């Protein structure tokens, strides 16, 4: 992993045409400004991971998995 220090107002460039600037820095969060071509998708990491996990969940949901889960999980668990 490449690590670098940046101050507010400083920026860096990724590949061709992607520029990321530190706009504001607080105790435990930073505000970033991103300039990128329209064809470069920008998505929060956790949103991408959730999308991938949802696709995997939809694909893997089957009768086998239901049976596996029911064999292994205690019934009468807390309410949702």
């Amino acid at each position, binding site marked *: 992993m490449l690590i670098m220090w940046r101050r507010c107002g400083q920026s860096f460039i990724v590949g061709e045409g992607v520029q990321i600037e530190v706009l504001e820095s607080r105790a435990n969060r930073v505000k970033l400004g991103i300039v990128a071509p329209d064809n470069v998708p920008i998505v929060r990491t*956790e949103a991408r991971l959730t999308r991938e996990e*949802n696709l*995997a*969940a*939809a694909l893997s*949901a089957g009768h086998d*998995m239901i049976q*596996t889960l029911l064999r292994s999980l205690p019934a*009468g*668990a807390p309410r949702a």
Partner: protein
Amino acid sequence: MSRIPTKFFGECDCEAGSLFSFPSGLPGFEDQSSFFFLKIPGAEPLLFLQSVSTRNLCFILLPILVVDPNYVLELAPDELADLQLPLDRTPTIGQDILCAATISCGDGEAPRANLMAPIVVNLQAKIGMQVIKGESGYSHRHPLRSEGALLPC
């Protein structure tokens, strides 16, 4: 009472009360805005989130407190507003809201739960969303364990 086709249970009698609107869909399924929550006798504690428009789309869920009895859900003001929940108090799981995790499984892997992004629905307003809590510290691939042993899949 209407009958809808489901992925796992043939045609189900679904009460209007179990129909939930997901205005933004789910990540990866943004065009799916209506789901039925199915509770199947004998399949507790599993829940099933069945798409109304796509028969072959049904998520298997577990109530979040089944996966982690100590789970803490913190909803931001904009998430409370999206769910049409009061902003001045914390909603109670099982009373105001239903909170459940999607379950998935890779080939030969143990089933896992997405605790980072639970499905949350307002039981009164019948509106739901997947809240993505990237800063919560919970894993999007939390392994399900049974009496200490990993479940085979």
